[in-house]
C-alpha cells in the first residue's frame, strides 16, 4: 500500500492508502475521492480524472504520452505544467506520500 494525499480545490486534505499496481484514478475512486470522475474507465478518452501533481513527485513520474498530452488540452479546468491524467499514473512505493491537487471541475 502507498499513501497518497489529495487536496481538493478548497484546500481540504484526504489521505488514502492506495493499492500498488492500481492507477491513481482507480485508487482515488476506491478511496472515495469525489473530485475524480473517470468516465472512460482509464481508456484516456474523457479527461475527467485530471489532477495537479506536486513536486518532487511530478518529476519522478513517467512522462506524458502523446495521447495524454492531447487529452490534457481538453480538461474542464485550466491545464498547468503539472497537470496529469490520474489514470496514467501507476501506484508504487516510489510515490509514497505524493501530494495531488484536484481541479475545481472535471
Amino acid at each position, binding site marked *: 500500500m502507498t499513501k497518497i494525499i489529495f487536496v481538493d480545490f478548497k484546500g481540504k486534505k484526504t489521505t488514502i492508502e492506495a*493499492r500498488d499496481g*492500481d492507477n491513481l484514478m*482507480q485508487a482515488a*475512486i*476506491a478511496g*472515495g475521492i*469525489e473530485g475524480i470522475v473517470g*468516465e*472512460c*474507465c*482509464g*481508456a*484516456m*478518452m*474523457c*479527461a475527467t480524472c485530471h489532477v495537479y501533481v506536486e513536486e518532487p513527485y511530478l518529476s519522478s513520474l513517467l512522462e506524458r504520452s502523446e*495521447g495524454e498530452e*492531447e*487529452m490534457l*488540452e*481538453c480538461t474542464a479546468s485550466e491545464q498547468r505544467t503539472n497537470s496529469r491524467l490520474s489514470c496514467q499514473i501507476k501506484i508504487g512505493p516510489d510515490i509514497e506520500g505524493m501530494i495531488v491537487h484536484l481541479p475545481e471541475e472535471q
Partner: protein
Amino acid sequence: MTDNTIVIVGSGQAGFQTAASLRTEGFEGEIVIIGAEPGLPYQRPPLSKTYFVDSDAQRLLFRKSDFFEKNRIELLQNIRVTRIKRDKKQVELEDGRIISYDKLVLAMGTKNRDLPIPGTNFENVLQLRTLADADKLRQAAKGASGAVMIGGGFIGLEVASVLRGLGLDVSIVELEPRVMARSVSEPVSAFFENMHTAMGVKLFLGERVASIQGNAQGQVETVTLGGSGAKLAGDLVIICAGVVPDIQIAADAGLAIENGIRVDEYMTTNDPDIFSIGDCAAFVHTASGQRVRLESVQNALDQAKCVAAKIAGHPEAYDRVPWFWSDQAGTKLQIAGLTGQADQWYEKQSDSPKKLTVLAFKDSQFVGAETINNASDHMTARKILALQDKVSFKDFESRGFDLRQIAMEKARTG
C-alpha cells in the same frame, strides 16, 4: 424534501450514479438500489477490453462497500423486480418481497438479443454482458484455439481484438455489409476492417449464421454460414448480436414505450413518480429533435445526474452532447454527437495513417464527428456541438475544416 424513499431498479452505471448523485444533491431520505447481479456495482466497459488481460475485478468497482454504508444506500443484490404496482407505489421482487417507493427510477439497461439459430446450447457458445459472463469467457479463451464472433458491432470487434491478441484464430460473421454499420460511417468501418484483417482476423461480412454444430460431448466445433454454406471451425463461439432494452416490467405497468421507456426532458415517464434513465430510456435529443435511446457511459452518467437533481428539487432539463468510445487493439474510436442522422460526410485529410476524422452533417449543419486516435478533434467537436449556435458546412469549409479555429471563433461570438 418530502420524497422519503427512492427506489432504483438496476445497479449498473446509471443506477449507481443516481444514488451517488442524490447524496451529492443533499437528498437525505432512503435510497434503495435493486440489482439483478450479485456483488457491488461495477463498470461494464472494461469487460470487453482490459479486463481480459487485467482480471482484477476490484478495479471495476465504482466504490467499495463502505461507501454504501456511509451514504446510507441500501443495495439489494442478485434479485429482480417482477412487477411495478403503480396504484400502491410498490415494486414486487421475485422472492415475493414488496418494497414501497415515493419515487421510482428505472435503470434496468439492456439485455442481449436472443439469436434464433440451432446449436446455441453447445458448451463454449457464450455471450458477454455481465462480470460473470466475462469470467466465463476469459476462462474458456484460455483453452481455446479458434473463436467465431457472431456479430461485428462494438463488443464483437473489441473481444475479437483481445482474443486475437491472445493468439486465437478469430473469425467475425456480420449480417451487414460492413462492421459497426449501424453506428459509424463507411470510412470508419473500412478503417477497422483493414485493421482487423491486418491482425489476421477473418471477416465474413453480409453473412448470416445458419447453425452451430458440436460433437457428441456437447462441445462446439463449427459454425455454418447461411449464405455461402461455409463451415468455420471454432471451439469458442461468442454471440454479440446486439442488445434490446430491458423494459418488460415498465410495459407491463402501462408506462409509455417508444423503443425504450418514454421520458420527458427531466427523465420523467408518463407516471410523475416514475423516472427512467440510461440504456433503457427513450428521450428527445434536443439538438436534433429526435427521440433516441442511447447505450453509453456518458448517457447513463448524465441522465443519472439529471434525475437526481430533479428528485432533489433542482430540476434542469436534460441537454447533453452524446459521446461514445471503443477501444480495439490500442486503436481508439470516439464518436461525438449523433452521427447516425447525417446525410453528408466529410473525411478530413490526416497527417498519419493511424488517425482519421470524419465530420457528419445533416441539412448542411454540423451534427457530429467520428475520430480515430484523435482525441483532440473529438474533444473539440464536443465543444462545438455544445454551442447554442449551429455550425454549417460552409463555416467548416471556409476555415479549412479546422475544428479548433471554429471552436475558438464561435465561442467568442456565441
